[in-house]
């Protein structure tokens, strides 16, 4: 049986719809992981021990177990205790929280790397510790850490394929559905790989623009 790419146009709408879902879930999870990462970093560094420890345990659990398992737990497991979340939400939460922990590590390092003189200058003007963190330290820390965060976001895009197992009709699952009715795995997997690659290129281009803008202010 040779290759036959002529089956693709008929299923292109399904695949492209899947691509949209992939983009949606990636963007949502990226936003969760970005702001959640900053929040977790600030908590890990500055909150009182009583608050800090539960979050440490949380970080450890999310880093130490497979993302796939976490998705199963959130989607199939939580129902048993009465928390029934839609697959899309479960996917965003699972992916988002997983990458919150990765991003938080990066943010923590970069927050600590901001020169002590910056806090001193802000405090001598009368800003509180929290105001100095929010307006002076965190913005600088975020700026310094954009390139590695961007790499995490590209990893997130690729890992978003995992949410196909909980039934979100994203790119990978829609390819599988097309394959199910055409028996053309090679053609559709190549197509889907190309689409992931294109989304990736766009993300990298956006990232480079952001980096260039940041560079101008350094």
């Amino acid at each position: 049986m040779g290759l036959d790419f002529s089956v693709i146009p008929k299923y292109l709408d399904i695949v492209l719809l899947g691509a949209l879902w992939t983009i949606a879930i990636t963007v949502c999870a990226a936003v969760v992981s970005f702001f959640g990462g900053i929040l977790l970093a600030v908590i890990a560094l500055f909150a009182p021990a009583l608050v800090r420890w539960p979050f440490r345990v949380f970080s450890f659990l999310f880093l130490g177990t497979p993302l796939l398992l976490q998705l199963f737990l959130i989607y199939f497991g939580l129902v048993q205790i009465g928390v029934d979340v839609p697959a899309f939400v479960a996917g965003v939460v699972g992916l988002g929280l997983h990458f919150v922990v990765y991003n938080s590590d990066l943010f923590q390092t970069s927050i600590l790397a901001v020169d002590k003189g910056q806090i001193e200058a802000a405090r001598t003007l009368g800003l509180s510790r929290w105001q100095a963190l929010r307006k002076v330290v965190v913005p600088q820390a975020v700026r310094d850490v954009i390139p590695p965060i961007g790499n995490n976001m590209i990893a997130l895009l690729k890992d978003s394929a995992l949410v196909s197992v909980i039934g979100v009709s994203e790119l990978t699952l829609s390819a599988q559905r097309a394959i199910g009715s055409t028996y053309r795995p090679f053609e559709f997997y190549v197509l889907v790989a190309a689409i992931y690659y294109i989304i990736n290129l766009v993300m990298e281009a956006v990232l480079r623009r952001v980096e260039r803008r940041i560079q101008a202010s350094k």
Partner: protein
Amino acid sequence: MSQQKPFIDIRHAKKSFGTLEVLKDISLQVERGQIVAIIGPSGSGKSTLLRAINDLDPLTGGEIWLEDKQINKSLPHRQYEKHINEVRQEIGMVFQHFNLFPHLRVRENVTLAPKMLKGLSDAEANALAEEQLTKVGMIERIDYYPSQLSGGQKQRVAIARALAMKPKVMLFDEATSALDPELVEEVNLVMKRLAEEHMTMIIVTHEMGFAESVCDRVLFMDQGVVVEEGPPEVIFRNPKNERTQNFLRKHLAGHKA
């Protein structure tokens, strides 16, 4: 006439790090509009004393008063934070390494604190920034980032940033020490202008010539004590204490070498 309280009153200031005593019972009164220079070798405690005034390096003993307010009074943590944030708004500080906020343009460096703490509108804050930046001769660079400025220009912006809070007193911690020699003068000029406007200033410096021409009083500190103090013409021309003489001799020799 009743006795007037000093504007800034430092009483028996003590500071130690572990067993190391950095400040050993220092008292200093500064009148409103007075300009005081603190000189001395490195490690003498002069920066520590300056940083104690706005509580960046809290004292381990003694009191500091600004007018009728005790700066380092003992309060529960939360109340103390609130108190010190208010006090610090009245005390401008300029650092050796400028400490401008690199992620903000010159304009936002100046407007950040007035907007956050005094609730100024964008228009009011902009007018304030323009006024202060004009004063330090930096108005043309209002939309630049700090990284696009020379050291002298950065320091002038840092002064404008501090002045925008309308402080009652300005503290200068070796404001020109990190500058290339040819950039020192532009910062000194700004400080002279402030002196002419009778801003109360405490200046930790290595610039003896500047201290002599601008200051009303000079303190020579060594090993955590004020060894000698007096008007600049006495301290620089006719110091009584041997340690002061030695320090000035070495310092001048160093400058000529």
